[in-house]
């Protein structure tokens, strides 16, 4: 992860609202995106993430507020003169043109000579790993190749911001993972601000410097991937990103930012201020933890912090990992645990009594 805090602001949303008739698609978006940042808009379908991206590109007007790019208000600036380029979900490769004609499409009004433009096209194709593909017909390309052409076509114009609308969703798993790594490398190489729209939380965690999690037209949390994963600020964000176990808890006292709770299965605990989510959840307090933060202790191992007893309820073997559903003593619901499989370590059977190690620092309190 790169620290982008000291970099200048590239995009600024100032209380952006968008209505489609009566439908309130964007509800007061305020956020800044730094220059050179890999920024993701993450959320379920219909949360407004694509709409927000399209307000940057200029394909979508806004009802109130302001979208600033590099310090300039974009109101009334049409898409074709904005310093942004987009990679579309369908890639939008022009089917009647060759690969080179597609990549060079944006250079039509460029005053450079034909030879210089051809060299720029060749360079862009090489950058995305399609060297020598220039003469091919665009409609004969595979999904992964179309994606690369779309990238080259956008990047050849050296935009200030590259917008990516779910660019990997049409690819198969293996290709997707490969392209994730390639996109990260490419972004570091060109140093352009990338803004990615995705509904895939894993993709967002892997690729982004910072992520804005959106629900129903609002940003629920804006943070770096680690903070989002470890310290989600609401049950909703916690549920959307990865797996989070919840156990009922009772808040006993609060003083000086520290909170004393009595949590089912864990007992009395004192939590730091950063472990307490700010957004109220509604249905009473609960303690949350990730599957990998609890560890089953095997013979000869001792806990470094706390230790509890539990019963194995379900075992799911994944090769490199084993998922256990365990019931901590004193609780009524099974919790999901993930253990990395180490050579020589047995996979526990259902019904086994197990010692479980945990640390209070890994827990999050949701109000």
């Amino acid at each position, binding site marked *: 992860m790169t620290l982008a805090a000291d970099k200048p602001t590239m995009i600024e949303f100032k209380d952006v609202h968008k209505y489609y008739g009566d439908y309130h698609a964007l509800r007061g978006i305020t956020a800044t995106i730094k220059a050179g940042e890999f920024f993701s808009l993450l959320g379920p379908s219909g949360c407004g993430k694509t709409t927000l991206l399209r307000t940057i590109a200029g394909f979508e007007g806004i009802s109130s507020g302001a979208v600033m790019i590099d310090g300039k208000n974009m109101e009334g600036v049409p898409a*074709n003169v904005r310093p*942004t380029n987009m990679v579309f979900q369908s890639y939008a490769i022009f089917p009647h043109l060759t690969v080179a004609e597609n990549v060079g499409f944006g250079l*039509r009004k460029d005053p450079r000579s034909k030879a210089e433009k051809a060299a720029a096209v060749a360079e862009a194709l090489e950058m995305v790993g399609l060297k020598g593909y220039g003469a091919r017909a665009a409609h004969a390309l595979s999904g992964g190749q179309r994606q690369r052409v779309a990238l080259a076509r956008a990047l050849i114009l050296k935009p200030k911001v590259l917008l990516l609308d779910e660019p990997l969703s049409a690819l198969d798993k293996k290709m997707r993972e490969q392209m994730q790594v390639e996109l990260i490398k490419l972004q570091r190489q060109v140093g352009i601000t990338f803004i990615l729209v995705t509904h895939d939380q894993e993709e967002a965690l892997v690729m982004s410097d910072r992520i804005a999690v959106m629900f129903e037209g609002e940003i629920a949390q804006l943070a770096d991937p680690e903070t989002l994963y470890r310290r989600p600020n609401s049950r909703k964000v916690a549920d959307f990103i990865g797996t989070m176990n919840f156990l009922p808890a009772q808040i006993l006292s609060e003083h000086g930012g520290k909170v004393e709770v009595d949590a089912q299965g864990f007992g009395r605990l004192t939590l730091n201020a950063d472990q307490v989510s700010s957004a109220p959840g509604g249905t009473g307090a609960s303690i949350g933890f990730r599957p990998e933060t609890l560890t089953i202790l095997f013979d000869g191992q001792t806990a470094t912090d706390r230790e509890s007893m539990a019963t194995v309820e379900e075992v799911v073997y994944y090769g490199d990992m084993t998922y256990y559903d365990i019931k901590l003593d004193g609780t009524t619901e099974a919790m999901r645990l993930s253990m990395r499989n180490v050579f020589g370590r047995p996979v526990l059977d259902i019904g086994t009594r197990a010692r479980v190690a945990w640390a209070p620092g890994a827990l999050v309190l949701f109000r």
Partner: protein
Amino acid sequence: MMKGGWFRVYTLGYLIFLYAPILLLPLFAFNDATVIAFPLSGATTKWFEKLWLEPELHRALKNSLIIASCSAVLATTLGIFASRASTRYSFPGKAGIMGMIMLPLVLPEIILAVALLAVMLGIGLPLSIFTVILGHVLVCTPFSIAILSAAFQSLDKSLEEAAYDLGETPISTFRLIILPLVMPGIISSLLITFTISLDEFIMAFFLAGNENTLPVYILGQFRFPQNVPVIMALGTILVCLSIALLATAEYFRRRGIAKTGGKDTGGFL
């Protein structure tokens, strides 16, 4: 087995009923007799030669070609506007307006022709090939829209957005992206509307005034029994021409689908 057998008989019977009369056309066109009856009495090409010596036929042909060309161009131009509007934009009363434009497809043509005739006479517009063109545009435009709507529909909207995004204006986007991609549909529309106009009889009969078009001329010639084999020869040529035009139109339509990577959703062939 029995079921399949009857189905085969039905299919065969249908095809014979459809194509046997057309096959008789060239048969009698090359037959050396003025009576259209079997047995045949020897081969000749004199009926085709006679076609060259009919100034009235040449005039009708020239009229028909002018009318068909103008109608095809006009109907296709209107078709482009209408299909673009109906596939890309939403506006109040769209379904109703599109329905009314498409109505001539099913409206009895004779009603349309009589109504048009009444209007032309009412406003004092002299009947000529121009009035026939007006009528044919009305008849041909729905066909053009049917063909072009499919072409515009299969166009991914993000292709246009990508072009804007890469710095093009709406006008240059239309020229560089949209037009080339729907061009096969436009050619297909031109050829089919041309064929429809060329074959059309009722409108031409009512609206042409003193001018003849080819179909009107052909009907007129049936009053003279000695001219029937000549009409057979002319018919043979027209059938070949029609098939060639429709096949070309279909070729362009399919090539357009292949080019944009879309799915074949029907057509006229």
